[in-house]
């Protein structure tokens, strides 16, 4: 359903241009759940934003169901059925939760909104009429962000680290919600995550590192590898294997 071909992205940073994505290639199939993972700074969020049209890719192509969307705007892609839940959601002075959900989908009436908020572990009564301003906690804005994506009728839903800031008690319901969205609405789901619990949902796992897809693999393989590693520092792993620690250190 989604095809990313030779995708490259260069962004202007403080110290000149940075190549954030290079020569990325992968395909997503209909109705599957994908989990994308890999080291911090590897390019997962940048890739999602390039798919959503927030970053304009500098080379390559993005196809949605065979149609080239590389030059389409954010809202055109949104109207074609792509949704992205931000890793760091925006806050709005003067816009209420109810209003944002109404913007997300005009099909949502109050009872549907209550269900949506329930799915992300919030009680509608306490939240619908509140402004999404700085008074919300990090976990609360994150849940509302996820709800705005659940509210929509999407072909492809991308969730960027949905578990970040979400408490343990709500995680179970959230993972069930992703499965429900996938089964009931046939939405292809791409979740960026570093969590074992989310990895367990994956039909396939896409590994992204250094701005490119390093591997497309199974959850069993990734989970197996994670269990072998007792520390996430590649420098220490190298040390343990007797390698040149400092010179090899890529951090």
């Amino acid at each position, binding site marked *: 359903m989604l095809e990313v071909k030779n995708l490259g992205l260069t962004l202007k940073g403080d110290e000149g241009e940075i190549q954030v994505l290079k020569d990325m290639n992968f395909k997503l199939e209909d109705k599957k759940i994908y989990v994308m993972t890999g080291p911090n700074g590897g390019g997962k969020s940048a890739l999602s934003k390039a798919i959503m*049209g*927030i970053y304009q890719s500098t080379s390559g192509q993005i196809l949605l169901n065979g149609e080239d969307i590389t030059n389409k705007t*954010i*809202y055109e892609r*949104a109207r074609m059925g792509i949704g992205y839940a*931000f890793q760091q959601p*925006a806050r709005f*002075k*003067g816009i209420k939760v109810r209003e944002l959900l109404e*913007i997300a989908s005009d099909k949502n009436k109050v009872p549907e909104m209550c269900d949506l908020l329930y799915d992300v572990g919030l009680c509608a009564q306490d939240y619908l009429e509140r402004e999404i301003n700085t008074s919300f906690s990090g976990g609360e804005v994150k849940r509302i962000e996820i709800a705005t994506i659940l509210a929509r009728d999407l072909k492809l839903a991308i969730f960027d680290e949905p578990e970040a800031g979400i408490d343990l008690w709500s995680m179970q319901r959230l993972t069930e919600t992703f499965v429900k969205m996938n089964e009931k609405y046939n939405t292809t789901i791409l979740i960026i995550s570093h969590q074992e619990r989310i990895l367990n949902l994956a039909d396939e796992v896409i590994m992204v590192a250094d701005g490119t897809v390093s591997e497309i693999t199974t959850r069993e393989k990734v989970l197996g590898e994670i269990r072998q590693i007792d520390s996430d520092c590649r420098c220490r792993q190298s040390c343990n294997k007797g390698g040149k620690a400092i010179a090899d250190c890529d951090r």
Partner: protein
Amino acid sequence: MLTAIDKKLLFEIADLNEIPQGAFNLRKNGEGSGRHTTSNIDIITKKDKPGIDVIIKAGTKGESVYIPVIVSEGIEDIVYNTFEIGENSDVLIVAGCGIHNSSDKKAQHDGIHEFFVRKGAKMKYIEKHYGEGEGSGERVLNPKTIIEVEENGVVELEMAQIRGIDNTIRDTEVNLHKNAQLIVVERLLTYLDQTAESNTTVNLLGEDASAQIISRTVAQNESKQVFHFRLLGHAKCRGHIQCDSIIMDKAQVSSIPEISAFNSDAQLIHEAAIGKIESEQLTKLMSLGMTETEAEETILKGFLK
């Protein structure tokens, strides 16, 4: 009789579809044009200068006073209104001025409002300004508001200028006595080459007086806004100013704060920010299917609400 234009203006400035129940005074093109009083609220025409005295009896609860002003021709009008808000009363006052100018002459309304909010009284004051009309004549509004709040009084001011005023200078001065409380919410939008100046001074005179000022403004095109906020703490008191402006196009905004304490138990805070619409907000709304223009309008509407 109210014309269609009058009705439109009344709706814009006071949400009125018809003449309201309760106390009411309509001023149209510099003259009185309709009045109601109630057993608790009297409205008397001033003898020495244009304007009215609104007298609210002590203990009046849950009543409202509407005193809209409409200007539908190119005239320059000045009015002096005095309000006596009796002890322990609790009232809503809805003022506001709408100008429809289809002439090439200036239409100007200067309203000087003086309030005496007596002990324990509560007043909510809403003032909306609105202009329209196809004429080339300027639409100018210069309100001056002076408020004396006695012991335990509570005043809430809601001031909004949403559209069509070319030029405004707004002066507000409030004196807060013992345990008096003030909340000001100001909303202002300027565009084209409009200019707006707003000067607010709050004197916290009595012990435990408190003031909170929230100002949200949007400046578009080549418009200019200048704000002076002054909080002067003369006693053990608390004051907080929060001003937020969104600046667009070639507009200019200056926000000039002053907080001064003349007592070591005064606690005063000023927060001010001027900036563009946050790009995260725009991209979020666009990723929900809005065009950039729709997203911008939604953000500004919420911000100025």
